């Protein structure tokens, strides 16, 4: 009988023990932001070419990177290699393009272009070693016909420039 009572008291002792759960909350604000500074436009200087060059009535897209922490991020920008929207295309499209630094907020960033790398043919990566703002341009030229210079089908064409801020 004592044992039983003890057992019961033990059970009570376990069930009345108190405890608490405390949350730790934190938020991280990005120290790198990417924004479109100038939207791009394709010009159509001839039937088989779409280009962003201003000489062909195009507009080169410009993206802006702002970093508040030096040596913490890469700017990675790719020029397009396909249309995101377009009429049905029966032939291949040849893509060319270039990514370049067009404007900086400090003369210390003037070496960004020379120090950049090309992980892929259409991608260029920049080490953002200085806090501040950098503007990048991405030119794009699309030629239709697989070298045969065929006319693009009429319609609306859209391509995408991908700009990313990647932590080092």
């Amino acid at each position, binding site marked *: 009988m004592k044992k039983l009572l003890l057992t019961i008291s033990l059970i009570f002792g376990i069930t009345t023990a108190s405890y608490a759960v405390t949350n730790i909350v934190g938020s991280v604000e990005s120290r790198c932001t990417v924004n479109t500074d100038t939207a791009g436009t394709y010009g159509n200087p001839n039937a088989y070419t779409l280009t962003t060059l201003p000489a062909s009535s195009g507009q080169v897209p410009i993206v802006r990177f702002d970093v508040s922490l030096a040596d913490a991020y890469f700017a990675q920008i790719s020029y397009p290699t396909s249309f995101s929207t377009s009429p049905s295309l029966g032939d291949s499209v040849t893509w060319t393009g270039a990514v370049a*630094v*067009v*404007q*900086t*907020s*400090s*003369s210390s*960033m*003037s*070496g960004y*272009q*020379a120090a950049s790398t090309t992980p892929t043919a259409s991608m260029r990566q920049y080490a953002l070693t200085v806090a501040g*703002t950098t*503007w990048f341009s991405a030119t794009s030229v699309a030629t239709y016909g697989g070298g045969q210079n065929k006319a693009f089908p009429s319609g609306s064409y859209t391509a995408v420039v991908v700009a990313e801020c990647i932590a080092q």
Partner: protein
Amino acid sequence: MYGHTWGMTTPILGVTTEEGMDISGVIYNYLPVKEEADDFTVTVQNEKVGGGYIFQDTEDWSGGIGVRIQKVVPLAYIPIELFGDGSITTTGTGSVEDATVLYMYRWDECRNPQNNENCAGYVPPLPVIPKIEIYDALDDEFVESATKETDKDLIVEKEEEKNNDEEEEEKERLEIALAAVENALTIANTVSQASVVRAMNIATNINSYYVAQIQGGAYTETISLEGGKIVDNRKVLRSLGQDNLMNQMIEEQYK
């Protein structure tokens, strides 16, 4: 911006630069043109009124390629009155092309209450009183010239009149002098006559006239008032009443 130096004036900034404007930052943009190996620095700055600079921001492009730069220089709401000329200066080999400098500002309209009649402390300005020049014809040289006497006969007559006046004044002075001499002689004669009379009186001895005596007695009081009472003279009272009425009548005419 004209060249690489500019003044902080309304035509340059495009807004009215009055008391109450504070500059809170500067955004500049330019393209440095240079060879990669050349040393080249570019400074954007604004002088400060009274000496020194409000800000100086220098970019060193030495050993690098020229890339278009856009930069923000934050400032702590500095009054426009303190801003002197702005400029972009360079050192080394290279040039600056296609430069733009923008000023960010805020406007406190009521810092000077006179900027707006709705501001506290606004004092209506006094109207400008026009200065009226009074024309005095007598000071007009043309009037003086026109009224100047040119007849020689008139000038001679005037001179004669002047001479006559002087002669008359001379005569008057002479008459006054002679009259003074005559008066002196008259006084002297009076004195001499008195002395003659006194001498005659001494000679005739008229003292007997002064010592004559009149015979007479004392005049005594003969009227006496015995008992009774003194009664006012009613005639006199009536007469005084009439005088009062007369006085009233006289005063009536002055009211």
